[in-house]
């Protein structure tokens, strides 16, 4: 099936299989930041934005993004780098495998929530399971990045 979508602000026409999931389509087109790990739709690694909302790309049939705007971390390099620098400064940058999904969800949260409390931050990021460098370091980084969220 043929789909037309806007990927990272570029209009593209792609051929996809009927039962192909978006994560696989994105990877097959070189967007290798998108990774799959859990196969049960709960780890958050494959997080991308569809119409600026965080979604699990391993869980969306590619045909369903026809006519939509899809954003991966490759499409927001400036913001992603800004947050990555804060993460690094807190010593919580991880090995990098899970980071794109985590960063995409943090950026989505920044766009969606206004002055979130610590509880709201934790709740928003629950769907990103891997925090191998530690929840506290990452939480500090997220708060710094959001600009002094309340403790």
């Amino acid at each position, binding site marked *: *099936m043929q789909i037309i979508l806007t990927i990272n602000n570029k209009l593209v026409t792609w051929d996809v299989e*009927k*039962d192909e999931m978006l994560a696989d389509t994105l990877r097959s087109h070189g967007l290798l930041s998108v990774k799959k790990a859990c196969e*049960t*739709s*709960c780890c*958050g690694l494959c*997080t991308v934005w569809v119409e600026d*909302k*965080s*979604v*699990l790309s391993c*869980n*969306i*049939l590619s*045909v*369903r993004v026809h006519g939509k705007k899809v954003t991966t971390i490759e499409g927001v390099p400036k913001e992603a780098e800004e947050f990555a620098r804060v993460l690094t400064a807190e010593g919580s940058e991880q090995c990098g495998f899970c980071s794109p999904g985590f960063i995409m*969800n943090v950026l*989505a*949260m920044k766009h969606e929530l206004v002055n979130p409390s610590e509880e709201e931050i934790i*709740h*928003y*990021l*629950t*769907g*990103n*399971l891997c925090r191998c460098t530690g929840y506290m370091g990452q939480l500090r980084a997220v708060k710094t990045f959001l600009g002094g969220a309340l403790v």
Partner: protein
Amino acid sequence: MFTLGDLVQPENLEIAYQILSDKRNNTILGGCAFLKMGSKRIGTAIDLSNLNLRYIHETDGFIEIGGMTTLREIETHTLLKEYFNGVLPKSVREIIGVQFRNTVTVGASVFAKYGFSDLITALLVLDTDVELYKGGRMPLAAFLKKPKEKDILVRLWIKMDNCKATYLNLRNSASDYSVLNVAVSKLDDQWTIVVGSRPRRADIASNASAALSKGNLSNTDIEGAAQKAAEELSFGTNMRGTADYRKALCKVLVKRAIMEVKVCR
């Protein structure tokens, strides 16, 4: 992972239902999250995305929720936050993560009658009707008792009454399935107690609800109702908890939920 023979995106419900009825393995797609966990061989998959079934709005004293509305929309919608002490947003907010809730749908959660459903538990304590394309409109409780047959959940209707309600659950870890979930509501003097994820699907504890509605809400009455709920409902064992554990939990969560609703304004 499921396999698809074909995928269609019909322009109206009539065609969608026709295709659904054509062959036994033709299937409606919801958010696909649970479907993905199995290995179903789907003949023709029917995607309802083009049918404008993604909405929450107010119509003649009812909140209407379209079948393709996502659980995240339930969680964040102002109307649902304001009504019934926000019991519906509260019931879905711990399901996996934001990214997951942005794709899974109300229609699939309710139509599939999942035992683990948090949403069904909360919907059952409200005056909720289910509207099916073929089967028509009926109370959610009646729908849950009906044998499964092919149909399309078009929308939910929730009466905008003065119901006070709450939802509680216990999870072994954040974002896991509930070991047990409980919702309690009070409309005037009528109480409704619902327990789900037993791990069977949510059910109303009728005797406990009736007893509580007759009493004067003393601590003894509340404890009595919680005890009754634990006795009249059946509980099972799975990897998340034993039947005995769930029964003990039921008593505690029902008691807490009643006490919460008692002070709800």
